[in-house]
């Protein structure tokens, strides 16, 4: 079974996750509804008094306006990444859900693909809710702003894949602390989310360009306010390549982990 077996059979697994999600949809909707409000209150109201305006891509913006699109991008990252790390690990390790699935006509590739696509779907749902919240404040220009939702799917595939890769190699659920503090947290802080990358020294700018979150933040800024400081084409290609590389790495890691 070294061949790559992927068919549309991943859809029923994706649907299984949707059924579980729908059961507590109110709770699932609450987080993306409230979280951006907390951030906007803390950073936009609390911190912006100290900071004033920000110069981004040659324009002056209020600080709250600057960070609003970044909230979309970080939520996309967190939703997919946490789904394919903690949630997938629980299904795989504690609930033996994958073992049961692998006694049916499903292949390992289909199960893993479904998990990653589901992570991306959660990113998409969260981004749609956050989009509504920040639209109320007038931080989104339409119709381009709607493109954030499909963009969230691509971003979700990238972070879902890298999360699934960590699930494939982590010895225990506690060890997710490592990728969270060494991968997700630095991305969260240094990807042009809370300050413009153009203000960094050159080496910092190079580093930011490696960050998939930086490219996602850039794209959400472009789609919600029509401005970005880099090239949209490069950012999309980078995210897609990142997703693809970690997708195959995650399949390989899960194959090694599960097939004995």
């Amino acid at each position, binding site marked *: *079974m070294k061949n790559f077996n992927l068919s549309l059979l991943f859809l029923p*697994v994706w649907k299984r996750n949707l059924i579980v999600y729908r*059961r507590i949809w109110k709770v699932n909707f609450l987080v993306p509804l409230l979280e951006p409000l907390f951030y906007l209150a803390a950073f936009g109201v609390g911190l912006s008094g100290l900071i004033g305006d920000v110069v981004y891509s040659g324009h002056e913006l209020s600080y709250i306006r600057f960070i609003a699109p970044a909230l979309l991008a970080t939520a996309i990252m967190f939703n997919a990444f946490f789904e394919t790390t903690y949630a997938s690990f629980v299904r795989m390790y504690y609930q*033996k859900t994958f073992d049961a699935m692998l006694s049916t006509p499903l*292949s390992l590739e289909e199960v893993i693909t479904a998990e990653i696509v589901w992570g991306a779907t959660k990113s998409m749902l969260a981004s749609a809710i956050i989009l509504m919240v920040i639209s109320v404040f007038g931080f989104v220009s339409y119709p381009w702003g709607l493109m954030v939702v499909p963009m969230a799917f691509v971003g979700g595939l990238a972070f879902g894949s890298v999360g699934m890769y960590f699930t494939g190699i982590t010895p225990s659920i506690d060890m997710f602390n490592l990728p969270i503090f060494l991968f997700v947290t630095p991305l969260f802080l240094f990807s042009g989310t809370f300050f413009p990358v153009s203000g960094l020294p050159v080496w910092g700018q190079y580093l930011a360009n490696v960050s998939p979150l930086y490219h996602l933040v850039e794209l959400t800024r472009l789609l919600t306010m029509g401005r970005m400081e880099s090239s949209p084409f490069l950012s999309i290609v980078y995210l897609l390549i990142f997703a693809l590389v970690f997708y195959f790495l995650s399949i390989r890691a899960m194959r090694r982990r599960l*097939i004995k």
Partner: protein
Amino acid sequence: MPALMDKGYPIIEAMDLDKRFGSFTAVDKVSFQVEKGEFFGLLGPNGAGKTSIIRMMYGFSPLSSGSMKVFGLDIRTGWREIRSRIGVCQQENTLDPDLSVEQNLLVFAGYYRMPRKKAVQRTSELLDFFALNHKRNAQVSQLSGGMARRLMLARSLINDPSLVILDEPTTGLDPQSRHQVWDKLRDLRSRGLTLVLTTHYMEEAANLCHRLIIMDKGRILVQGSPEELIQKYAGTSIIEVENPGPDIMSFIREKHIRHEELINRLIIYTDDPEGLGRVIRERFCPEKCIFRSGTLEDVFLRLTGRELRE
């Protein structure tokens, strides 16, 4: 091998099956066949290789060498088709705790691309058959051990399989639940389903299986029907003597009677309960002897030894 119920190709055909994990050999050149309609048992102590064989049967574990054919299809290439026609009841509880009892079956039906209408109908049939209808909307965590096991069985039948693989289906169940599971398995057997069972309960294997193999350390020790194996390896009768004295020991050894010496216990295997039994009863043990018939457990312990595993 007994006369096979020959109806074309065998349902399972394992040839020189090997499974190695690094330098450890879990399954060592195992060959066997399971015919259509047979209830086939796979017995052995822990670590004998039963679960490894079962996992190779449904294409979960790749074979190290040898071949495995199910329905005449090679597991390496035909795994998807094979899995769509079999049901697997795994040893561990792999029910989906995020779903209700009913959803467990409906969602599983989706993995077989079963149309919704058929899935709903099949689900309600199975809930009826396994007496789980009243728990339809319960969460899996609310089920007792016996009910969870019945739901596992129901789920393994969702696709109307022609072969069902059961890995220790009654381990950890109370006697009532175990008997209920046996009743259901007998029912399936009478419907002509082919079943493969692993178990640690010899009584279960003796009751249910047409034919079985006993393995140890990755190899097959014997195969045959429970009756044949008992006849051949245990004898029809067994006399257990507690705290045997030196006179009975020398009597048994002199006469070359099949026996086993345990701590403070002597087990005598015989096909002649009348003659030998009477002699022993009258000469050596008027009270502390147990006369009983041979069981599969005697066969099992004789063949695989009594020392603890793992």
